[in-house]
């Protein structure tokens, strides 16, 4: 365990250079959101809860046959969540909303991956198995996945599900934004295509935001003045318009800051070019060198440094 004078000075030089030159090159956090990506606008007031989107999703993504038929609307009697066998579900909410004829009406909310603009799952993923594509999709690549489930911990919408009963090759399961349909056949996601009431509009996210704002402007009083997904966690590809407050429809209040900002800022300011480990290594090397020199001075007969074998 000898720390020789010469090796210490070499070490100190390397450490000092790294520590002085690198921190100034660390940049402030920047959003990596794609500029011209696609999205979907869901107008909750138009959804009739027919579950056709669930059916189309199941077929396109070749998911297991559902236990109950997609025509069976009694499924809506309880609240469901997307899981490893369904990428999207529609839930019914009875909020006491009364329509033009004075009748009580229910609201139906489609739930799926929101395809965040700055996704927490992508930032958290240890191998980059989760990635944000320029078309807006948050893509999962099973070939890189190790199954740590950090994406699931990170997701503010609690969306990614897991094949917990597959012992060797389980996958993270979530909405794919029908990327293959979009890429190979230039078609919108299956749920958007099949929707009979045009509750789901597919298009460029910026166009959809303008469309949503136009609907808010043209129909005063029809909607609550909020486009859910415009700013939540820095923005999501899926956007929602609603007649009743979102809090009553299972949407949680989320910060407008992209979630990766804090952890990525911490990580990059602390570890860019490994400046802090290099500095700490040098400091500890200095302390070790001093403490050994002091000891050798006390024991002139002992040429071997103490602790040769731990």
């Amino acid at each position, binding site marked *: *365990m*000898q*720390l020789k004078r010469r090796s210490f000075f070499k070490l100190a030089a390397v450490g000092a250079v790294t520590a002085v030159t690198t921190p100034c090159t660390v940049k402030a956090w920047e959003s990596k959101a794609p500029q011209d990506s696609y999205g979907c606008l869901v107008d909750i007031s138009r959804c009739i809860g027919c579950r056709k989107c669930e059916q189309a999703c199941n077929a396109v993504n070749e998911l297991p046959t559902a236990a109950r038929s997609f025509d069976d609307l009694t499924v809506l009697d309880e609240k469901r*969540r*997307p899981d490893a066998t369904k990428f999207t579900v529609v839930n019914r909410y009875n909020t006491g909303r009364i329509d033009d004829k004075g009748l009580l009406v229910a609201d139906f909310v489609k739930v799926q991956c929101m395809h965040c603009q700055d996704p*927490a799952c992508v*930032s*958290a993923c*240890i*191998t*980059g*198995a989760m990635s944000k594509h320029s078309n807006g999709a948050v893509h999962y690549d099973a070939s890189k*996945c*190790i*199954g*740590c*489930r*950090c994406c*699931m*911990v*990170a997701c*503010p919408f*609690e969306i*990614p*599900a*897991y*094949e*917990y*009963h597959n*012992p060797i*090759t*389980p996958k993270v399961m979530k909405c794919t934004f029908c990327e293959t349909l979009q890429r190979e056949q230039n078609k919108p996601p299956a749920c958007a295509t099949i929707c009979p009431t045009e509750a789901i509009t597919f298009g460029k996210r910026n166009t959809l935001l303008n469309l949503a704002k136009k609907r808010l402007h043209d129909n005063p009083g029809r909607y609550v003045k909020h486009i859910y997904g415009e700013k939540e966690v820095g923005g999501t590809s899926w956007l929602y318009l609603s007649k009743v407050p979102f809090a009553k429809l299972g949407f*949680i209040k*989320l*910060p407008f800051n992209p*979630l*990766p900002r*804090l*952890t*990525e800022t*911490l*990580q*990059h300011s602390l*570890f860019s070019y490994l400046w*802090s*480990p290099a500095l*700490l290594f040098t400091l*500890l090397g200095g*302390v*070790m060198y001093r*403490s*050994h020199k*002091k*000891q050798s001075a006390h*024991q002139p007969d002992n040429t071997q440094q*103490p*602790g*040769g*074998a*731990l």
Partner: protein
Amino acid sequence: MSHHEPYNPLPVRRPLWTPGVLVMLVFMVAGGITVLMRFSGGIGAVANLSTARPWGLWVGVDVATGVALAAGGFTTAALAHILGRHHYEPVVRPALLTAMLGYTFVVLGLLVDIGRSWAIWKPMVYWNTNSVLFEVAMCVMIYLNVLYVEFLPIVIEQFEGRVALPGFLAGLNLPVEFFLRFADKVLNKTMWVFIISGVVLSCMHQSSLGSLMLIAPTKLHPLWFTPVLPLLFLTSALAVGYPMVVVESTLVSSSLNTDNEMAVLAPLSRIAIGLLGFYLVLKIGDLLLRGSWIYLFDGTFQTNSFLVEVGLGVITPLWMLWSPRRRQSQRYLFIAAALIVGGVVLNRVNVFIIGFTPPVTQDHYTPALGELLVTFGLIATLMFIYRVLVTYLPILSQSRGDIKP
């Protein structure tokens, strides 16, 4: 090693198969069977994990707590070898062994927990430098190897010049002998690199384990969610290092009748209260600055768990060890150190399990029997291997008169 120190690590020549060891075996078998079930029926066959609660006991205890409690390895190495306080030499080897086994079992626990255990090598090829977990994984991987290197001199000391492998392995005697001699020569010159690296890597991932949950601000309870969580994790790891050594050393010396290390443990505990006090100041300062103290008395399970964590795990031991007279009592010292260890365990459990409250589904999580069996099985195996290694390698310090041939 300097010859003038009253420090004499020797193998513990005592019967291995005691009743305690047999109890460990029972847990090991039960854990083993559960692991077989996990690798035939999937994680879902033995664990209560769900979409909203993807991490449970295995990550919270086997991984996060395991890493924290292995901190004795780098804190004692820093004290004895970097700061040059060779007085503490007798606890360095047992702490190093605990760290080496602790980290080995962190990786074993991870292999059970991650869905694709066979893919654990992939982060070495596919890098996501934005990911906190990536940095933690790299540090843990390198540090585990550093720990093995740091442990090698103990093996060399015992076997160099007398390698005699049993049976058909005897043919390897010469190569092993050659390797030990070579390693001895190289390590003698380079050990300082490994010792400093060990401390640096530890500081990096002990703190980053705290950054891990900062990606989920809506899920982690505000009593724990703070941008300074990495600093709190690092400080608490530093603070728990020496108390862990005290607990372990007391348990080992009383069950194996080896030297009682009070001469070392009492001053160690003095450093520990300094670190623990600093941790408490940070923690209280954080509560006040963020205003999250308003949750303290709302009576929820999370809040009560926080109060126990800080009250019983930080303030009580701090008060107990404040007076130098009490620090000299082995019993007081042991209880206080055990409280500190318990406090850090509860802190990690709080951050990763109890304080993790997903707001959309509000899913609850209680560990399944299978999860408990795997965790206890891993801990029992760790203790068993510790017992085997101190039996055959010069790790525990003993007075010469005490050795039975």
